[in-house]
């Protein structure tokens, strides 16, 4: 790691070359050392979560079935649905251990397909965090790829969470670690608001113009944070001598200070800010992190309003804070945290909404939620790619991933993406692209679809096997009796072999267009 750092801090170096050096070095060192430790930690924490959660929420709801859990894990950890082969491998493992085996495979990259899983895992989590940092409504638009690349390298090196965030706060390696700052319009005020929301769960924007109406945040808090970045502003300051440490707004001069602390003469550098912000003693930082990972996996934060942890009552954040202590004391190991949540009863419960959905109800009772999640645009495309067995090689001219089709579909679906995992926001244009778009057209064409050909041309499959395979490939489950009956009846309506083959394409259309395909239950 030392060698990598020296190379990276050298002057002008091709960033992809650096990334490769980093990846290679990491795969030899970190994976062996931390994987087994991580597996042990995640098991330990998950057992703790089961007990403590029980105390906090009451008994957990029933466990979901194995196939549904596999679908969740592939979507949540790799960003795509499992293949039929992967599902069959999963079911071949002994029933008592198959869940843990799969989680260790996907989170700690044990067993077969290690490299592939590791890459997909890093890309998926980078995308998730990019969305946290730059929500769909932000103006950053198409330039987010650079931040995703930056995050992806961090995840693939298994960097700890505090180091990752510290790099963004401090921007020591200015040309690379300032990526998030640049996507915040290189504006100290915007960046202060982003850092405070993402890493501290405090929404300070209101305090930019006036003291916060509901909480105690003042303009001195907002501008005190922005002051750490005043020298980097892309907008010329009225006060040209502006240096980091002070900032001017509307004629008032503000001094750099840590949020919720008094200004101190010795505080001015971003390095100090980074150290304060990511310190294990800063409970707000670690609790926000734990809450965000929980939300991304379970669908709703332990405290639902992930951007506003400052308004949570001590009771509402009791469980979070306790988990955050474990997280920070173990030096913020991301995969252990993800593994722990996935192994817990709470992640593995059936989709669940309590009778009263009001967490702030008068009697102070706290209810557990396991909502249905909506797939992100990228998850939808990558799942289609997986389910339909689309070619993925760059060398294949028909690979939708590389022809620009992925970008088109993702951007159309992204035009109305939800604000949180729970939020299903797709409208008619998004439905139309799934119903009638080119990707679906190719997918249900007997001539073009690899999935259909693989299913229809296999001499070993019975009529029922074929339906089962289509259902597993798309919805990761077996068809119900009613579905099987309806599909068989539909196929048998036709007499000619060609018509019957085509009918399988229509069934595939319905599977891909069903709510289950774009949701994660």
């Amino acid at each position, binding site marked *: 790691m030392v060698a990598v750092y020296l190379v990276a801090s050298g002057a002008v170096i091709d960033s992809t070359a650096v990334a490769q050096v980093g990846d290679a070095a990491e795969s030899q060192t970190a994976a062996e050392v931390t994987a087994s430790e991580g597996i042990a930690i995640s098991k330990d924490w998950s057992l703790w979560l089961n007990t403590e959660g029980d105390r906090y929420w009451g008994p957990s709801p029933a466990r979901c079935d194995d196939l549904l859990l596999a679908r969740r894990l592939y979507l949540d950890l790799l960003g795509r649905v499992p293949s039929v082969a992967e599902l069959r491998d999963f079911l071949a493992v002994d029933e008592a251990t198959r869940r843990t085996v799969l989680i260790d495979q996907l989170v700690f990259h044990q067993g077969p397909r290690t490299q592939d899983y590791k890459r997909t895992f890093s890309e998926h989590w980078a995308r998730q965090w990019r969305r946290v940092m730059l929500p*769909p*409504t932000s*103006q950053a638009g198409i330039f987010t790829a650079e931040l995703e690349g930056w995050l992806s390298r961090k995840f693939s090196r298994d960097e700890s969470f505090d180091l990752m965030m510290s790099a963004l706060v401090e921007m020591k390696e200015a040309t690379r670690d300032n990526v998030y700052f640049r996507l915040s319009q290189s504006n100290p005020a915007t960046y202060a*608001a982003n850092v405070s929301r993402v890493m501290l769960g405090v*929404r300070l*924007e*209101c305090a*930019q113009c006036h003291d916060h109406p509901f909480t105690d945040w003042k303009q001195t808090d907002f501008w005190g944070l922005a002051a750490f970045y005043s020298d980097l502003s892309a907008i010329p300051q009225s006060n040209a001598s502006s240096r980091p440490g002070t900032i001017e707004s509307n004629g008032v001069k503000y001094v750099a200070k840590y949020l919720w602390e008094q200004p101190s003469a010795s505080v001015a550098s971003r390095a100090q800010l980074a150290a304060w912000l990511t310190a294990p003693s800063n409970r707000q930082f670690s609790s926000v992190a734990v809450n965000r990972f929980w939300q991304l996996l379970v669908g709703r934060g332990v405290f639902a309003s992930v*951007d*506003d942890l400052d308004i949570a009552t001590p009771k509402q954040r009791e469980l979070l804070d306790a988990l955050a202590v474990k997280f920070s004391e173990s030096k913020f190991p991301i995969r252990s945290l993800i593994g722990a949540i996935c192994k817990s009863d709470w992640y593995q419960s059936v*989709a669940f*909404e309590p009778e009263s959905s*009001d967490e702030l109800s008068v009697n102070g009772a706290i209810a557990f939620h396991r*909502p*249905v999640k*909506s797939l992100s645009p990228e998850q939808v495309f990558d799942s289609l790619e997986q389910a339909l067995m689309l070619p993925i090689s760059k060398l294949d001219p028909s690979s939708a991933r590389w022809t620009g089709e992925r970008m088109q579909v993702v951007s159309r679906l992204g*035009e*109305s993406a939800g*604000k949180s995992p*729970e939020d*299903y*926001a*797709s*409208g*008619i*244009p*998004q*439905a*139309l*692209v799934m*119903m*009638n*778009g080119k990707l*679906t*057209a190719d997918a*249900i064409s007997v001539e073009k679809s690899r999935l259909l050909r693989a299913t229809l041309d296999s001499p070993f499959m019975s009529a029922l096997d074929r339906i089962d395979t289509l259902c597993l490939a798309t919805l990761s*489950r077996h068809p*119900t009796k*009613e*579905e099987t009956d*309806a*599909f068989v009846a*539909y196929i048998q309506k036709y007499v000619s072999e060609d018509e019957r083959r085509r009918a399988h394409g*229509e*069934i595939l*259309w*319905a*599977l891909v*267009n*069903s*709510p*289950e395909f*774009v*949701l994660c*239950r």
Partner: protein
Amino acid sequence: MFTNSCFSRREMMRIAMASVGGASMSGWLPQLAKAAMEVRSTKACILLWMPGGPSQMETLDPKPGRPNGGPTQSIATSVPGIRISENLPKVANLMKDLSIIRSMQTGEGDHGRATQLMLTGYKPTGAPIAYPVLGSMVAQRLYDEKSELPSYVSIAPFRFADLGSGFLGPKFSPLLVSGASNDPNTRANLTVENLSPIGGDLARMQDRASLLRTIRRTSATKEENSIAKHAAVYDQALRMVDSQGGGAFRLDEERDELRDAYGRNRFGQGCLLARRLVERGVPFVEVALTSTDNGGGPGWDTHADNFKAVKFLCGVLDPAWAALINDLKDREMYESTLVIWMGEFGRTPKVNATSGRDHYPDGWSMAMGGAGIKPGQVYGSTGKEGTDVDIPVNTPQLFATILKALDINPGLSNQSGDRPIPLVDAHATPISELLI
């Protein structure tokens, strides 16, 4: 309430033929589709949206002969005493059918912030509330659930801000009709992407829909929120595919002379499409006039060469706006359809060094006519040099007036989670002088 006088009998027949056309081959919901055709009991709104901020001096509030007026002359209108810019001669003839507000004072001079203000009625504050745009608010109040078309259509959209249905959800988000194409024929025949079923056969679509219903019915597809939303959006989309948008997009059904009158360009044909959509029950249609090239950029943002640029854009705007009003009147739809013309702000009275005008939110013009509006008036003025506003109108007041004109009570609220969000900010009340 207004009922079914907007279609002539012949018109009804024609629409019915076009959309249900072949009940034998289409229609998983033929009765509903028919019902949607029979009654249009609500008002509708067409927003002519001018992104970039049009110059009031060169459109509705000319100051000929004054230092700030530039070379733009004024002309008489069909209302004695009211004069507007020479750039809008056809609209001037229709002045008795619309009213102008010349004293808009809105306070936001940045494109993004002003767009958010003028489309949602709320200033951007960074508050964690996704305010819905006017179109979504109106759509939610006036949409007929059984319609085979969506509640809100946006034609040639261009916006400086990422806005949509906000907390009202996907049911009221706009269907975007891009019309962006370099081929003039395609461009004139505005259509919706992916409206044709795969294989082109509507009967096949019926098979698909019925298979889909089987899957929806099974397993754990309970009345969970996301699943219900998915079903609602898909049913809308399926109705639209089945009816091919109620035939609304078949602009070639219209007489050549009428298409010519609207102007054979994206905006002109967009206005024609807006009429066809409203006729078929869409409660809110937005047509944007961007630059007249194919790039679709903000043509009205005339920091340089203002006079030539605005004259050119008015060459597209004037015939289209006038044809729309005339067409709606001919069909007895104007009294139930509110037509609004506005951008996010106006332009500085003072001409800058590059013959341009810059952003100006402190005294600018908008116009509206049709449903609910008392026509033939000018409300407010900007004085001799365009700088002295007498009776300032802010955005919440304008929104209250628009909603009232559409028979929507501006005092109502929407729910965002457990929080009531008033339709208009600050309990604004409508401008009674402008209402019937």
